[in-house]
């Protein structure tokens, strides 16, 4: 429960902000809001399965991870200009699905597919760095005032630093449970940072749109 609180606070904050500015959000950002809501649901339900039903919840996170990766990749495709980049991103989704399915088939749906998480994190980091460069670096507007910057930063910040932890996740769970619990704080901190950063993009979009409406 101690770990759940900062996660839920960050997600709830992003969801409230997203709903408040919902009508001003372009389509990719509505999808972002959906990913935040799904993530809150997965965290809450996963913990319910483990703590209340006393069952393994890895199957649920295995299903959630492919949905989350798919949604985040689609958002990256929607935010990218240029058809070749979009095609490459679509190919990366296929690569991820193959990786995910292979791991699930080799292990089981009841064991967390940690290497699929690592693969997904690497692919999303690459995609969102590209989105960031594609949308912001050559822009003549202040990068910090661009919603796409905060959205990309939130995804990169969550995915990239978590790679070492997720790479060792299953090994540690099997061999050093106490250490695994200590290191899980890495994921908590990164996840707690991710969604408030995404919320900044909602706020910027809402403010930009209301400013336009006020001057029209």
């Amino acid at each position, binding site marked *: 429960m101690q770990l759940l609180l900062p996660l839920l606070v960050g997600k709830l904050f992003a969801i409230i902000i997203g709903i408040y500015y919902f009508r001003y959000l372009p389509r990719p950002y509505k999808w972002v809001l959906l990913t935040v809501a799904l993530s809150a649901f997965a965290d809450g339900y996963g913990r319910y399965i483990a703590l209340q039903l006393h069952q393994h919840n890895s199957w649920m996170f295995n299903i959630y991870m492919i949905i989350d990766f798919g949604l985040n990749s689609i958002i990256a495709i929607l935010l990218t200009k240029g058809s070749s980049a979009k095609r490459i991103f679509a190919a990366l989704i296929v690569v991820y699905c193959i990786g995910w399915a292979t791991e699930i088939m080799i292990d089981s749906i009841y064991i967390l597919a940690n290497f699929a998480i690592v693969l997904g994190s690497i692919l999303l980091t690459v995609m969102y*760095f590209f989105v*960031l460069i594609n949308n*912001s670096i050559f822009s003549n507007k202040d990068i*910090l005032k661009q919603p796409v910057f905060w959205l990309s930063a939130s995804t990169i910040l969550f995915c990239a*630093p978590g790679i070492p932890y997720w790479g060792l996740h299953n090994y*540690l769970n099997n061999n050093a449970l106490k*250490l695994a619990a200590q*290191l899980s704080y*890495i994921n908590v901190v990164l996840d707690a940072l991710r969604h408030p950063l995404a919320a900044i993009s909602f706020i910027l979009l809402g403010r930009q749109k209301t400013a336009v409406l006020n001057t029209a």
Partner: protein
Amino acid sequence: MLSNPIFLTVILATLLILLLVAVVVITMVLSNKKNVQQIMKMAELQRDYEKGVREVQEQVMTEVARELHDNVGSRLTFVKTHLQQLKIVNPSLSESLQPVGEAVINTIEEVRMLGRSLNSDHIEKNGLVYTIEKEIERLRLLNKYQVQWEQDAEPELNRDQKVIVFRMFQEMLNNAIKHADAGTFSIGLHGRNGFKLVVADDGKGFDLGEMLASAKGAGLKNIMKRAELAGLKCRIDTAPKAAGGNGTTFTLEK
């Protein structure tokens, strides 16, 4: 905990990746800032250049106005005086000289008005309401156009803004006469509750998007650019007559 090599490796690897991400993102932010500064500097230089060009144009027009007044005007006055003398000396020529005299008087008046319209000092001295009124008078003298004119007070604009507004007004009229075949104008200048200038004509109108995209829209773009330079908002409501349009209305506001 810290003595555990796995723990240390994971933490250090995480921190290293975080550092790398931070370095890349900060580099992007700094490069963007530099880019934005450069663009702003370029825009400022462009504005300064355009201001310089405008000032030179105004100076040239003022010179031309002065020349019209001092040189052409005085020569015409000399012709008028000479004609009057001729009429006195030779009363039999009085009747045949009458239309010539009238033409000279009209020309003197037209030159005087043209001089005023070219001279931006005149706008500063007499105000925007008076200058626009005189321009409308010039238009009415052509006996081809109907002009409805209303105003309430002199707007609170600085000298540059007044000159720009007046030049834009001239461009709007010129466009309506040259391109839109307009016959009726409705002009309103409001200064009581903030500045607002409305110039509406009954011409054939045009497709705004198409016009701005084509090379023909240079004058229109010029009007919009001037408005931006003066810190004013310019709205253009128009549509081709074939598409159910009802002329063109320019609205200029502070």
